[in-house]
């Protein structure tokens, strides 16, 4: 059984169900209570769970990150919202030097079960300091997990799994997806972390896409299908750990790979995906260089035309697919 929900509603449902199921789950963040969250994800939860468990914080990103970590270390399961992913730059010490390392530094004798949810991405005219896609930084950090859902169903299932995970999870939501609708199964079934999903099966080219790029890749796949090109679209869904097996298997099968991601191209998540495939046995099956389509090498500009030009669009993916087919 399933019903249609928006991505935002699916996230909210996951939060609500976990909060009902487990008293230790609490929410922290700026304007998540009365205001309902800058992107309305937590709307209504204050009313159901009260101000102790849905906690508006001062504007102190490092402090509230540490607060979540300390609470997680001593028996709670906090879910922290950082209002825009850009502001996570203020949390790096606590996230990377504390949350990610505490368990290891303590010889495996502690754990930090927390989720940091944050909206990423451009496309809303929010300019250079409110449009970041920084997931690659966190995918570089042992001790963290990184999740990036592209559909409402994944949003719910992956958030359930992230809250139940005993490790710190960076949960990257995309602003443009909040209003997107999709079928979401009834019930509280988590989707395991670390498992990619084939969003469309195909035989000629593998397009590996993350976040908002998954929908664009599916559109591009549809477009080139008319030219007789069969595209397989895969969403890794978890960016750390990457499901190398699924990606490599598809690359072996098609021999042609395009990676589409919104973060800056250089050292964005696509760099790891390309490198991973290139060093695997898939190397011997590749018929063409792996094409990476990432964000342009600039801060995100305000102007709408520039902003569109700064990240891959459906057209760019179509072009990328054609290019990899020609090689």
């Amino acid at each position, binding site marked *: 059984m399933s019903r249609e929900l928006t991505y935002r509603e699916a996230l909210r449902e996951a939060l609500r169900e976990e909060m009902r199921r487990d008293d230790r789950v609490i929410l922290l963040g*700026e*304007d998540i*209570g*009365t*205001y*309902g969250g*800058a992107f309305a994800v937590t709307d209504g939860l204050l009313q159901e769970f009260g101000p102790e468990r849905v906690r*508006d914080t*001062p*504007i*102190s*990103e*490092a*402090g509230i990150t540490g607060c979540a970590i300390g609470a997680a270390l001593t028996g709670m399961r906090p879910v922290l919202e950082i209002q825009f992913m*850009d*502001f996570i730059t*203020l949390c790096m010490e606590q996230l990377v030097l504390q949350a990610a390392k505490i368990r290891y530094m303590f010889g495996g004798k502690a754990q930090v079960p927390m989720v940091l949810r944050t909206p990423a991405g451009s496309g*809303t*005219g*929010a*300019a*250079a*300091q*409110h449009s970041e896609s920084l997931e690659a930084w966190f995918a570089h950090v042992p001790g963290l997990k990184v999740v990036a859902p592209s559909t409402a169903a994944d949003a719910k299932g992956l958030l359930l799994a992230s809250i139940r995970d005993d490790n710190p999870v960076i949960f990257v939501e995309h602003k443009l997806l909040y209003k997107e609708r999709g079928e979401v199964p009834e019930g509280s079934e988590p989707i395991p972390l670390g498992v990619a999903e084939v969003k469309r099966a195909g035989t000629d080219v593998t397009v590996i896409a993350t976040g908002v790029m998954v929908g664009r890749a599916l559109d591009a796949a549809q477009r080139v299908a008319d030219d007789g090109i069969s595209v397989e679209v895969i969403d890794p869904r978890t960016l750390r750990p990457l499901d190398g097996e699924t990606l490599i298997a598809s690359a072996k099968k098609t021999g042609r790979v395009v990676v589409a991601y919104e973060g800056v191209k250089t050292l964005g998540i696509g760099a790891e995906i390309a490198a991973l495939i290139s060093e695997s046995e898939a190397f011997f099956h590749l018929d063409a260089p792996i094409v990476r389509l990432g964000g*342009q*090498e*600039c*801060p995100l*500009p*305000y*102007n*709408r*035309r*520039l902003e*569109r*030009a*700064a990240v891959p669009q459906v057209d760019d993916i179509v072009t990328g697919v054609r290019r990899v087919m020609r090689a």
Partner: protein
Amino acid sequence: MRTTALGIDRAVGMLTTMVLIRAFEEQADELFAQGRVYGTMHLSIGQEAVATGVCAALRPDDYILSTHRGHGHCLAKGADVRLMMAEFLGKDTGYCRGRGGSMHIADVSSGNLGANGIVAGGLPLATGVGLSIQMRRTEQVCVAFFGDGAANEGAFHESLNLASIWRLPVVFVCENNQYGMSMPVGRSMSVERISERAGAYGLPGQTVDGMDVLAVHEAAATAVGRARGGEGPTLLECVTYRYKGHSKSDTQRYRGKDEVDTWRERDPIGRFVGVLEGEGRLAPGAVRGLERDARAAIEAALQFAEASPEPDPSTLLDGVYAGE
């Protein structure tokens, strides 16, 4: 509230600035409502006295660091409203060639080192500007604007401390408009007055009525004088209010209409007009003329902006690096 200490030209100049800021903000609001602007923005209607009173105490070569709610600062520091409007609309003729938009308007030539999308993000920068002034021995001053919410960021603490120990020529101006987005100031900190925090850095702190442009100006002039004279920084809190929502998506569940109305009764423009008229320094109704002029200037700016070209996508990478 008395204007005596000020020349009439300066008093009317301040009124003119306030009226212009309001006209700009109202135009911006309308453009958004009409769907003619992309993204979001933060209006400073109600807070005009702060930007105006503070910037009136500055020299043209002094610096300011502004905030996400920065239109007023920008105008008060002497921006060309045409270039500002063009930036607001993301045009290539705008101050930032359309790259910045509302949240990043900067005009280095008038000493405006930029609005800032990061709450408290300008405060650390201000210490560096102060240091640079001190080392270049130019007797300039740097003003850093920030909100009540920003006073809870670590950057506030580190910046005030640094400015204090090095006696930097920086004035920290807190616009306490009662809320950080939806968070009432009384719930985000446990001090009555944000200016009390100055004590933690051995600095003078003062709280003034931010709806009274003369009070703001007087306090700012004193603080700027200290800074220029090598006596170091001041924390100046201006108690004010934003009439509009935090940004375009704010439904304002966190406050009642009554509260807004009560503050509106203390409107900084209305009060200042009353004072000037009462002192016989402004003819009754003369403010209408100022308002008309302001609207005309905004109208002209809008025409300029709308007639301006969008940036060409082929220039996307311009300005990422210097020297290329």
